[in-house]
């Protein structure tokens, strides 16, 4: 039926699974990929700007850390990214694809903004912050609970569910923006309470973003401890690895899913609180600004380890700020930073392959003596 001559060649590449890879080697591969990515980006930057790429990277460094203020903005944005990543970690460790961080951040932000607007004059500026904190957390928790509930109850596809929740949150934000519009006709909320700074984070040690850093670093430790040393964290790992095992050893899988999504959403809600009260002092559909998606990659690459997440989110924000500096210095569009980040992500994601698999080139075949 099928007659054909046989090629006597092996395929060019042979791939096999790697056994145990020592940690240092794995990190060497990752860092190698990052460097390679920077080289590729250098070429792209060169082809667009015709500038010495090394100089451009110097510019990037300046953009991120050049002045005290810039450095603090970099830190603030890192904290924001990190906070969302911390929120995603429990969900993803449970293998729950929560790509709805964007929406959870937004509803948290709406809650904060609402407090700032409606509670003004009704209480002291210090008392309102804890209330805002709790409200944002609750709002995020509700946004996490809904997809979690339906996943636990009916096995609904969580990826798309959480995604749709993003868009519902975006429309909700638009609704409130229209409601709170200031000045009229601008289609923005403007800076809320710009005069008395009611509901704004107070400067700590003279630093405007000091409180952001404190809140997020506390969360880093909390989440690390929660995932690694508590019973609930243990349950999350078991459910994530095998629901059957979880059921077998008496874990209430549904409860764990719902509980974890509430926690996940609540922390993302806190990120919304940071964004509104601690950074932008306004609310708009771009308050989350795509970070909900970027952080998934951060959390994924860090294997949900909070401390490694600090590293990755710093790296991403550094690249973003640096690339934006290049853009403004050389009159390019801001979007060039997304392009560069995308390329770097490709390299880092791709590098995992070389950790998990061994690649061997075709071996020289002994010439067919048998013929």
């Amino acid at each position, binding site marked *: 039926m099928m007659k054909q001559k046989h090629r006597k060649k092996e395929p060019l590449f042979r791939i096999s699974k790697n056994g*145990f890879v020592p940690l240092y080697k794995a990190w060497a591969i990752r860092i190698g990929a990052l460097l390679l990515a920077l080289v590729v980006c250098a070429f792209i930057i060169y082809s667009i700007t015709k500038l010495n790429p090394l100089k451009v990277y110097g510019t990037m460094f300046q953009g991120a850390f050049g002045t005290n203020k810039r450095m603090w903005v970099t830190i603030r944005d890192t904290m924001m990214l990190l906070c969302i990543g911390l929120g995603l970690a429990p969900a993803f460790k449970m293998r729950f694809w929560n790509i709805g961080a964007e929406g959870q951040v937004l509803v948290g932000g709406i809650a904060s903004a609402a407090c700032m607007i409606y509670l003004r004059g009704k209480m002291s500026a210090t008392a309102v912050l804890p209330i805002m904190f709790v409200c944002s957390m609750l709002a995020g928790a509700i946004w996490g609970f809904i997809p979690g509930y339906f996943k636990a109850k009916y096995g609904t596809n969580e990826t798309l569910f959480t995604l749709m929740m993003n868009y519902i949150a975006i429309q909700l934000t638009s609704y409130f923006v229209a409601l709170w519009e200031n000045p009229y006709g601008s289609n923005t909320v403007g800076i809320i309470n710009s005069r008395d700074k009611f509901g704004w984070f107070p400067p700590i040690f003279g630093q405007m973003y000091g409180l952001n850093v404190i809140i997020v670093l506390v969360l880093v430790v909390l989440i690390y401890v929660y995932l690694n040393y508590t019973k609930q964290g*243990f349950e999350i790992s078991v459910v994530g690895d095998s629901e059957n095992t979880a059921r077998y050893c*008496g874990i209430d899988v549904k409860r764990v899913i719902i509980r974890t999504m509430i926690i996940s959403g609540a922390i993302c809600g806190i990120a919304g609180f940071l964004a509104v009260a601690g950074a932008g002092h306004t609310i708009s559909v771009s308050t989350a600004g795509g970070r909900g998606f970027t952080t998934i990659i951060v959390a994924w690459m860090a294997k949900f380890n909070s401390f490694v997440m600090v590293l990755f989110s710093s790296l991403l924000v550094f690249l973003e700020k640096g690339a934006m500096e290049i853009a403004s210095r050389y009159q390019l569009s801001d979007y060039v930073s997304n392009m560069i980040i995308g390329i770097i992500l490709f390299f880092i994601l791709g590098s995992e392959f070389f950790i998990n698999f061994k690649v061997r080139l075709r071996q020289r075949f002994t010439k067919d003596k048998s013929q």
Partner: protein
Amino acid sequence: MRKEPYLEQNVAIRMVDITKRFADVVANNKINLEIRFGEILALLGENGSGKTTLMNMLSGIYMQDSGAIYVKGERITIKDPHDAYSLHIGMIHQHFKLVEVLTAAENIILGLNETRLIDLKNVREQVKKICDRYGFVVDPDKKVYDMSVSEKQTLEIVKVLYRGADILILDEPTAVLTPQETDKLFVVMRNMKADGKSIVIITHKLHEVMEISDRVAVLRKGEYIGDVLTSQTDPQKLTDMMVGRSVTLNIDRPEPVNPKESLVVKNLGVKDINGVKKLENVSFTAYTGEILGIAGISGCGQKELLEAIAGLHKLEPGSSIMFYPRGNKEEGEDLAGQSPIDIKHKGVHLAFVPEDRLGMGLVGNMNIPDNIMLKCYDQGKSPFTNKKKPRQQAIEIIHDLEIVTPGLRTPIRRLSGGNVQKILVGREISSDPYLLMTAYAVRGLDINTSYTIYRLLNEQKKKGTAVIYVGEDLDVLLELCDRILVLCSGRVSGIVDGRTAKKEEVGLLMTHFKEETA
């Protein structure tokens, strides 16, 4: 001295010095094997001896790391299944390679691309021709998910024949069949042989080897031991070749001491998600200090029975599972309708070694202490886990059961199957259970580990634990268990005494030849 391959007229396939590694494990080490025209070759070996791996290199699933393959004297490279088919080699895998949502006919023409459009009429005709020639029955329009196991296997064979295979490899084809179905399969195999086809049957069942094969090749732990003509050997010699030393299945069987009713199951019924009855009207009693064996063809409800007792299934109304810890009538608990959490919280010391070790009993990505912790992580009021005790326990289990592991922190999926099973059994026993249930506890384990497991079960028995042992090897069941309950299609077809019952008797019960006794 080895002859030049191309000089041998009657050799269909010759494999020379084949080596294959998986990560750190050598699955096949310098194996030489020949398959001749028109013979039935049995490839014999224990589980994990590398039989399937070797054959997968002929079917194009794997590629050898070194060594050469000659087909009809010509050196060839089989880089994928497509190459295998064009060399007229076809393999029927143990886990069927069928697409569930497609029909039989669609599965048969998968990947062939003989016509642009799907021409079912032509396929039906050809399938009928093949069926008539060798004595199969296949409905080309039936969806695979509606088929029984033996129908699926038949479909696999037809599929391979449709592709013009004249060298057929069957991987453990009888594992899932009833004796009657096995007989039918053997008839078909003889028909194919008469038609000039070469057949390789992978198996570890000696009586089948003796019945069907012309020649036997034996593998042991990835090494080629040798080959003999079936007519010149006997089961004892083959066992010696297969396990390396002569083995008498001398399993200890202490007399039960003061047996008391421990688990009384009445009218147990279970349906799966699709509403198909998996267990019906199952009633039996397990006593303290005895091992109750459960026998049956695979998929007859053994798994569901143990899972139902452990609280993992919804029971049909009327089911009752009374449990008397240590046979104490006053502390009786009805486990029916209880979830695993309820059972755990009631303090019922129930230990369960499930069939799917890494998918249910353990977590592959966790290390040994964390896996030990699975069962007891929620003890105490503190919100934090206590890692000290499981760690200590892990060290004890590793020591007691001689578990080979690079360290405490190694994820257990990196360990061998035997070590994984020892961890699981070790953990379950360490909870001092009143009831110990094991499903296929020795599947895939080497002989030494198997004996360790038997020893552990007997220790529990002597302690007065009620032990339930679901097994597939009748010889073991008959030497280990005090009584044997036989399941057939989800019903109890009989309960026999392990000391007096004959193998044939159990075999008949498994296929329901005797009228129900329960």
